[in-house]
C-alpha cells in the first residue's frame, strides 16, 4: 500500500487581490453586526438569553390566543389585529428599552467607534446602519406575533377562505401600522442610548419616560389621583382617590403626552377604529383632534430624537 505523505507549506503573507465592495458592504457590515450584537450571535451564551426571552414574550400572547381558540372553538374574545398591537406594545417598549443600549453603548465605551470612523464610512452611515438593524428586529417582533395570530385565526376559522375574504384588508393595515410602531420603538430608545454611557441607566431612563408619561396622562384624563397618607403605625401608603379629570379641549392635547400611545393613534386611524373611552381614554381623547395632529405628533417624535442622535454623533471625538 502506498504511504500517504503530506507537506505543509507556509506561503507567508499574501497580498489581497480580491474585490473591494465599497460603502454598501461597509454599511451592511455595520447593520449585520448590529443584528448579531442584539441577538447575542457570536457572543457567549448569556448574551443570548435576554433576546430569546423577549422574542418569546412578544410572540407568546398570539400563541396563547390561537391555542385557546383551537381548544374552545370560539374566537369572539380574540383581539383583532389593531387591539393586538396595543396588547404587545408593552413588551415592545420593554424590548426596545433593554436592547437599544446594547447597540450603541459598547461601541462608544470600548471605543470601537474609533475604529469604524477611520474606515470608509461616515457617522451617518454608521447611525443609519445601526438604527436599521434595530428597526428590522423590532419589525420582526411586531409582525411575528401578528402573523402567528392571523395564521391561527385562519386555520381555526370554520371557513378559512371566507375568513380571508372578509378580513384581507387587515393584512396591509397591520403591515403599515406595525412598521410605524416598530420605527417609534426604535428611534427613542436608540437616541437615549446615544447619550448614555451605562446600559442600565439608558434602560431605566426609557422605561421611566414611558411610565411617567403614561401615569401622568392617565391620572389627568381618567380622574384617578394618587395620594400618600400615613397609617396609624407611622408607615406611608399610596391611596387612589378620585379627583377632577381634565375635560374638553385641554384633555385632547394633554392626552397626546402619553408617549406609549403616540404610534397607537396612527394604529387606530389605519384600522379605522373608534377608540372606546373606557378601554383607553387617551386614545379616545386624541381621536377627537384633527387627524393631522397625531400624524405630525408622531413625525415630531421621530424627527426630533433622530436629529438629536445625529448631532450627538457629529460631535464624537476620536
Amino acid at each position, binding site marked *: 500500500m502506498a504511504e500517504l505523505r503530506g507537506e505543509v507549506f507556509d506561503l*507567508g*503573507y*499574501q*497580498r*489581497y487581490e*480580491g*474585490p*473591494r*465592495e*465599497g*460603502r454598501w*458592504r*461597509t454599511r*451592511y*457590515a*455595520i447593520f*449585520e*453586526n448590529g443584528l448579531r450584537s442584539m441577538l447575542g450571535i*457570536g*457572543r*457567549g451564551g448569556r*448574551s443570548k438569553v435576554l433576546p430569546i426571552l423577549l422574542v418569546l414574550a412578544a410572540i407568546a400572547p398570539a400563541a396563547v390566543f390561537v391555542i385557546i381558540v383551537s381548544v374552545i372553538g370560539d374566537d369572539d374574545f380574540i383581539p383583532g389585529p389593531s387591539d393586538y398591537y396595543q396588547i404587545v406594545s408593552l413588551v415592545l417598549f420593554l424590548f426596545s428599552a433593554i436592547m437599544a443600549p446594547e447597540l450603541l453603548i*459598547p461601541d462608544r465605551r*470600548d*471605543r*470601537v467607534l*474609533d*475604529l*469604524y*470612523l*477611520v*474606515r*470608509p*464610512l*461616515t457617522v451617518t452611515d454608521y447611525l443609519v446602519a445601526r438604527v436599521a438593524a434595530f428597526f428590522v428586529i423590532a419589525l420582526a417582533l411586531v409582525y411575528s406575533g401578528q402573523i402567528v395570530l392571523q395564521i391561527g385565526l385562519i386555520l381555526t376559522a370554520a371557513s378559512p377562505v371566507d375568513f380571508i375574504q372578509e378580513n384581507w384588508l387587515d393584512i396591509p393595515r397591520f403591515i403599515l401600522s406595525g412598521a410605524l410602531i416598530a420605527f417609534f420603538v426604535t428611534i427613542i430608545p436608540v437616541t437615549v442610548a446615544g447619550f448614555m454611557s451605562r446600559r442600565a441607566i439608558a434602560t431605566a431612563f426609557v422605561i421611566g419616560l414611558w411610565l411617567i408619561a403614561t401615569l401622568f396622562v392617565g391620572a389627568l384624563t381618567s380622574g384617578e389621583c394618587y395620594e400618600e397618607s400615613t397609617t396609624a403605625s407611622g408607615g406611608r401608603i399610596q391611596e387612589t382617590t378620585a379627583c377632577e379629570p381634565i375635560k374638553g379641549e385641554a384633555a385632547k392635547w394633554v392626552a397626546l403626552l402619553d408617549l406609549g400611545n403616540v404610534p397607537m393613534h396612527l394604529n387606530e386611524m389605519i384600522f379605522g377604529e373608534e377608540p372606546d373611552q373606557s378601554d383607553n381614554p387617551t386614545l379616545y381623547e386624541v381621536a377627537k383632534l384633527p387627524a393631522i395632529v397625531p400624524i405630525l405628533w408622531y413625525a415630531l417624535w421621530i424627527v426630533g430624537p433622530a436629529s438629536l442622535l445625529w448631532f450627538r454623533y457629529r460631535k464624537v471625538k*476620536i
Partner: protein
Amino acid sequence: MPGLLEAKNLTKRYGSTTALESATFEVHEGVTGLLGPNGAGKSTAIKLFLGLIKPTSGSVAVMGLAPYESVTARTRLGYMPEHETLPTNVSASEFLMHMAQVSGLPPGQARTRAADILRHVGLDEERYRPIGGYSTGMRQRVKLAQALVHDPVLVLLDEPTAGLDPEGREEMLDLVNRTAKEFGISIMLSTHLMGDVERTADRVIVLEGGQVTEQGAVDQYTQETETLIIELEEGREAVLSDLIRRGMKVETKDNFLMVENAGEAEYDAIRDAIADAGARLRRLSPTRHTLTDIFRGERADG
C-alpha cells in the same frame, strides 16, 4: 515620486492653541518614524491624514486624495490607535472578520483574511477566545491585526509599544519590521520613543511644538563614527596599556575599550596589541550615533 502621505504647509489650530504650524513633509514607502514628545502634534497629524479633522490652512493628501473630502482615501489606510479600542465580548476571529467587511471585503474573503492575519501576528491559537480575556500584548496584536486585515497600502501606528513590557515591546517591534519588510505594507510609526524609530524606521520626521524640526533617513542620523568599540573576553588590561603605550587615545566604557579617530594604522595597532597580549576578541566594530545622542546634543547646543 509623490509620497503616500503629503503635508504641505499644514497648520491646525484649536482655538488659540496651535497643534501644527506650517508642517511640510512626505511619507514614502517603507517605515517612517513620526517622532516627538507628547503634545508635539503627532496625533493631530494622524487625524488630518485620516480625514477626521480639516486643516486650518495648508493641505494634506493620502495617495493623492484629500482625506477630509472623501472617505475613499481611507480604503487603503490602516490605523492602530494608542488607546484601548477593542470589544471585550467577541473573539478576535469574529472581530477581525467584521472589520474586514467594514473595510469593504466580501464575507468569504474577510473570513480568510482574518484567519491569515491572526496567524501572522501570532494569535492563531487564541483566535476563538473572547478578547476580554487577552493580555495587553495580545490586545496590541489584535489592534495591529485589525489595521492590517484589509491589506492596506499604508498603516498608521500610534505608539504601538505603549504599555508593553520589554519583551512585549521587542515582539511588537519585530512585528512592525515584518509588516514592512515581509508583508510589503508601508508604515508611519508615531512615537515618542527614539529607540522604536531606530529599531524600525528608514526615515524619521521629528515634530516639536507642532513644527517639523528634522527629517531625513535614519541612517543619516545614525551613521558610523570614527570611534571603534573593542570587546574582549580576557586580556583587557594588557591590551589597554599596550594601546596607550602606542600613543592611542583609548577610553574605557563599561567593559569595552573605545578608540577614537581610528584609521587604518590604528586597526593594525589594535590587531597587534591583541595578538601580543594573547587576548580573546569578541567584537571590533565602529560605533554608530543614535538618535538619542543627536537630539540630546542638539538640545545641549541649543
